[in-house]
């Protein structure tokens, strides 16, 4: 009973954070010195356009009313027109969001596929050579700059081995998968360093627990104990760790999209910053923040589903 109520209530508890995000994004663009209408429309804007945007955003009204207009426009699905692309930012985001989503999902999947075996090996052979090697590799991995790693991966797999395309996105699914593999691998390598370290630590902590001794005293095999008892207990904190890292992961994709020239939100953001296309900057930042909140919400719900102890 409690569980269902939690699932329904949790999103409402996030309302203050969502409010805060919208205020921060609103304040951010308004804090640029100069006439907001000109800033939002670019330097070469017509007087008519300026008049129109003044009315739409209530730029002559007090600030709180301007915020109200901003939110109203958002709820109506209008984020304002891009000065470069001449379309509404929301449309622009809609057309660019797919590669980014696949990049994030693919990276998480690959990172888990890399980290779980490594952390398992390190934890089960604690103090042996394998453990030291894995710890050293993951410590180095923490310091790998994603953009450079991406280029090195291109150098090896695309230029020397010709296995994968150098950059771009592709038009059909097979091609997209082919194009996205290297970018995903790059982000995954960096992410798996964090994951491996933390999963190893939580596996080692769980292995110390009394229920492991009790399971051994029942004659269960080490494999059974590890996969059925220790791993499920360690995965709960790891899921939360993934959620905490989603912001970091999105940051990584912003950089990686630029390295591999993937037409996603990250590349859109960087180009918008350089060309001072503030409507687009505002829109993409907002979408990334909402995505982060959504992923954390999902992790909360997943924890509730997986951990029977959670007090609601």
């Amino acid at each position, binding site marked *: 009973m409690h569980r269902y109520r939690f699932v329904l209530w949790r999103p409402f508890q996030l309302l*203050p*954070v969502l409010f*805060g*995000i919208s205020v*921060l*994004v609103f304040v*951010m*663009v308004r*804090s*640029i010195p100069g006439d907001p209408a000109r800033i939002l429309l670019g330097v070469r804007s017509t007087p008519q356009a300026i008049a129109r945007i003044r009315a739409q955003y209530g730029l002559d009204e007090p600030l709180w009313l301007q915020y109200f207009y901003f939110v109203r426009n958002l709820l109506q699905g209008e984020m304002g027109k891009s000065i470069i692309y001449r379309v509404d930012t929301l449309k622009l985001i809609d057309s660019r969001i797919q590669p980014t989503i696949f990049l994030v999902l693919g990276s998480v999947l690959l990172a888990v596929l890399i980290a779980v075996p490594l952390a398992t090996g390190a934890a089960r052979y604690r*103090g*042996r*050579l394998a453990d*030291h*090697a894995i*710890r*050293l590799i993951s*410590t*180095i991995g*923490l*310091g*790998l*700059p*994603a*953009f*450079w*790693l991406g*280029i*090195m991966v*291109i*150098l090896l797999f695309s*230029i020397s081995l010709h296995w994968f395309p150098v950059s771009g996105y592709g038009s059909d699914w097979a091609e997209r998968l082919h194009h996205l593999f290297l970018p995903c691998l790059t982000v995954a390598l960096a992410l798996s360093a964090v994951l491996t370290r933390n999963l190893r630590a939580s596996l080692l902590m769980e292995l110390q627990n009394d229920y492991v001794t009790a399971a051994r005293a029942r004659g269960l095999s080490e494999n059974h104990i590890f996969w059925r008892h220790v791993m499920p207990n360690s995965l709960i904190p790891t899921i939360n760790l993934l959620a905490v890292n*989603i*912001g*970091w*992961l*999105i*940051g*990584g994709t*912003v*950089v990686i999209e*630029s*390295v591999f020239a993937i037409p996603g939100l990250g590349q859109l*953001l*960087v180009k*918008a*910053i*350089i060309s*001072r296309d*503030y409507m687009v*900057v505002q829109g*993409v*930042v907002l979408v*990334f*923040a909402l995505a*982060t*909140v959504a992923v*954390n919400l999902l992790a909360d719900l997943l924890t509730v589903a997986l951990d029977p102890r959670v007090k609601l």
Partner: protein
Amino acid sequence: MTATQSVAAIGRRVLPGGNTLTVGIVILAAWVLVALLCPWIAPFDPISQDADATLLPPNPAHPFGTDNFGRDILSRVMWGTRIDLQICFIGVAFPFVLGTIVGAVSGYVGGALDTLLMRLIDIVLAFPFLVLMLAIIAILGPGISSFYIAMAMVGWVSYARLVRSQVLSLKHRDFILAARSLGYSHGRILFFHLLPNALASSIVFAMSDCVLVLLSGASVSYLGLGVQPPVAEWGVMVAEGQGFITTAWWITTFPGLAIVALAMGFSFLADGLGDKLGARP
């Protein structure tokens, strides 16, 4: 003793868990030395161009090769140490100071102020770290000082949370109650009694945060929003070399390796310090 055993024994000494702190200090000391001595030890000027020596692969005169302007990569990597160490230092110092003060006050005062600051932290944390930083840089305009400001505005939250939780756990200990019963002022108790005890874990965190700041600074510069060419910064150098990746791999490879090596120094230092102080943030 078998070969694997002896390798494992050496491993325990050198690898994490062994003498990590020493390894970290040695790596960092080497970099600081390079930064200090680069005017004398760098074989070439980092910015002057040489039209006769463009895109040379590594050779005895240019051990790391040259770029498309004929600049010596080794010299640029050496000079870059100054910029990147500065990025680490300033990029960590501002958030550290700001976050420590906010966290300490928030935890000590408590009440509505604490609630308000915690809400603010929740909101800042709702944004992806790098994205919020890029947004702030977008407002301020590209450049390294914008990066520092953005770093301070985004990075303080981690320190604030860490210090706040430490202060909260120390606040009701006997020695603080004793100080209060002696009639010391709140400011004195907070900054002379509480903070020194609360700082250990945030100092360890600052060391590992150096890695994050270094990578962020290099990434922002790589994207063209931080340090601007022709300054020799490692991220900028990687970006400059990317266009020549098919023909001149050395332009991007060596600055990247420099980033990895510096980051490793900080990682080892953080790990070793964490083990020594028993403080794992």
